[in-house]
């Protein structure tokens, strides 16, 4: 099963003629993801890694009507038009890999996506992987490493950090677990998909027996979890680590690590942990402890 990406995923890479887009095309293809084609305005007709490049998403869809996912690899100044193009074409899942998208552009595209019922993961996402089925982006890294870290299994992984998506998944793999799907939601202040969308998906997914989250101080997304758990929309074992205790010593308004990891009154790691604990969520003191917490609730998957 898994969530978001699977064997039916068919991808267009917007910005495939760039260095990162080309590398992502290779990384996805070698993992078994179906990459149909790429889009770069003005470069239609070129071939990248044996895949055709089109001038627009509409042209790509005409040639490959099965496309249901766009991986977006364009420079930040072009991100808004690329996202809007995919939204307007009604592609159901956008995985926006672009970093440093102006927040106003993100807000604009998320509003448009909401209207069209399009799911956006990112910006500043590194990708999504459903082990053994498919991956979007380069999450997991080179094929050999991705296979070492990711195996099909029972743990859903949600992370605000790309590196920690891998690191946390590796801690579970090392302890003998596999993963259902690992999603890097991105560390920006505004992101298209967060815990409140993903936890219900993991709840519905029979393969997923538990979920772990690498969260950060700043923003309010961790507070949404409390609501989901209280209302029973998420009932599986859930363990979370929230980075940034040290930030309590920093002045308000300072940004550390990711754009969304901003020091705000009442939104620090400690405040979030207290509320989550009260709702019955397992809270890890350090990220390595996530494995111990889940091990108490879920047997190793075969």
């Amino acid at each position, binding site marked *: 099963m898994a969530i978001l990406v699977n064997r039916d995923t068919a991808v267009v890479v917007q910005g495939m003629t760039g260095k990162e887009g080309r590398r992502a095309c290779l990384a996805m293809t070698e993992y078994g993801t179906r990459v149909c084609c790429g889009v770069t305005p003005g470069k239609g007709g070129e071939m990248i890694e044996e895949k055709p490049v089109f001038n627009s998403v509409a042209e790509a869809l005409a040639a490959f009507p099965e496309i249901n996912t766009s991986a977006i690899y364009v420079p930040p100044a072009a991100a808004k038009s690329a996202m809007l193009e995919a939204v307007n074409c009604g592609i159901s899942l956008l995985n926006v890999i672009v970093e440093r998208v102006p927040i106003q552009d993100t807000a604009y595209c998320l*509003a448009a996506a909401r209207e069209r019922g399009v799911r956006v993961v990112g910006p500043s996402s590194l990708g999504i992987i459903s082990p053994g089925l498919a991956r979007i982006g380069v999450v997991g890294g080179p094929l050999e490493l991705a296979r070492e870290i990711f195996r099909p299994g029972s743990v859903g992984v949600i992370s605000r950090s790309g590196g*920690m998506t891998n690191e946390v998944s590796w801690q579970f793999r090392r302890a003998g677990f596999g993963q259902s799907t690992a999603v890097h939601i991105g560390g920006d202040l505004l992101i298209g998909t967060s815990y409140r969308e993903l936890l219900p998906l993991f709840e519905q997914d029979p393969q997923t027996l538990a979920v772990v989250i690498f969260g950060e101080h700043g923003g309010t997304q961790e507070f*949404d979890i409390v609501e989901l758990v209280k209302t029973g929309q998420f009932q599986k074992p859930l363990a979370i680590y929230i980075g940034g205790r*040290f930030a309590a010593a920093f002045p308000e308004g300072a940004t550390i690590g*990711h754009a969304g990891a901003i020091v705000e009154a009442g939104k620090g790691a400690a405040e979030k942990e207290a509320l989550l604990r009260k709702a019955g969520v397992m809270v890890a003191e350090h990220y390595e402890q996530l494995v111990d917490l889940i091990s108490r609730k879920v047997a190793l998957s075969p």
Partner: protein
Amino acid sequence: MNLYEFEGKDLLSRYGIATPNRVLVRAAGQAASAYRALGHTRVLVKAQVLSGKRAALGGIRRCASAEEVADAAAELFAAALGGFPVAAVLVEEELALTSEHYLSLTYDTSSRCPVFLYGQVGGSGVEQRLEAVVKEPLDIRQERVNALIPFANELWQCFKAEDTRLIEVNPLAKTVDGRWIACDAKVALDPDAGFRHDSWAFYEPRGALGRLLTQREKLAAAIDSGPAYYRGTAGKYIDLDGDIGVLFAGGGASIANMDALAAVGLTPANYCEYSGNPPREKVHALAKVVLSKPGLRGLWIVGGVANFTSIVETFAGVVDALEEVKPSYPIVVRRAGPQEKEGMELMAGCAARNGLRMQLFGKETSMSDSAAALASCF
């Protein structure tokens, strides 16, 4: 980037939002003549600091003569309000007010929209009265805001055109003669929109912590400038008070590792982070900045299992800096990911050539355990 009050007010003025008459003073000696030029008897002398709670820290003085203004300015320039240096002083007319309201525009992470916050409860200490603030979500695509709130539409135009992440007017006050006026302004610009705002280059550089940038922070900030600014990041560096130099790979890992370092009783001499597969030159420049800090007694080079950041490429940059400095204090390295074998060999070779006291760990050791390994060196 957070703006000083005077910068914020200048910005709001351009969008038709009324602000008090004021003169900016850059040195205490100019304060008396600024007061005379302003031509108001009763004035406020306001320290320009990137800190909230300015009033509570004594950063706003009421004056009614050139002598009082000169004394107040001299005191404020000499003070560091809550550790924040005073960049300038604003001499501003004191208005007779009948009410003080709170008004701000920012992005809400939950609704993923801009939100208007408005309350008839402005002034210092508004954080304690936030329940009285009305939250109004907006669609960033809307052209105008038709609210009864004074200056709502002017603020909206400014918010969008200037790519701000936050505009806070506290208080938005009503004067006894019935005018609405923005008595304070807190504005944060979105650094990611800098590519469409050439004018931002004219703002003086400032640090993430509200103080002026240190020399090392300035050197680091320059690393990610230029046309390829978004190709890998290596310019996030903050000087701190501890004695352990850190070189963190990855934004999320950097946050986890700041916590992990504190957990083993060590204190960082800096915060920094490189990520997104930066080229060797960027990492070299950042490592040089980290190693240049005097008084280090340890170095922690740590990151998670990288997705696509090349360990050999980034470590080559670190090694370039280590070859130049040849530190005598203990160094602990923990890293994994693409080309990790070659990267570790490079690091080990550097340690052997230069007699460095270095311990190398891969993904079989967790990041927290490598922090413990460093702590056990002391």
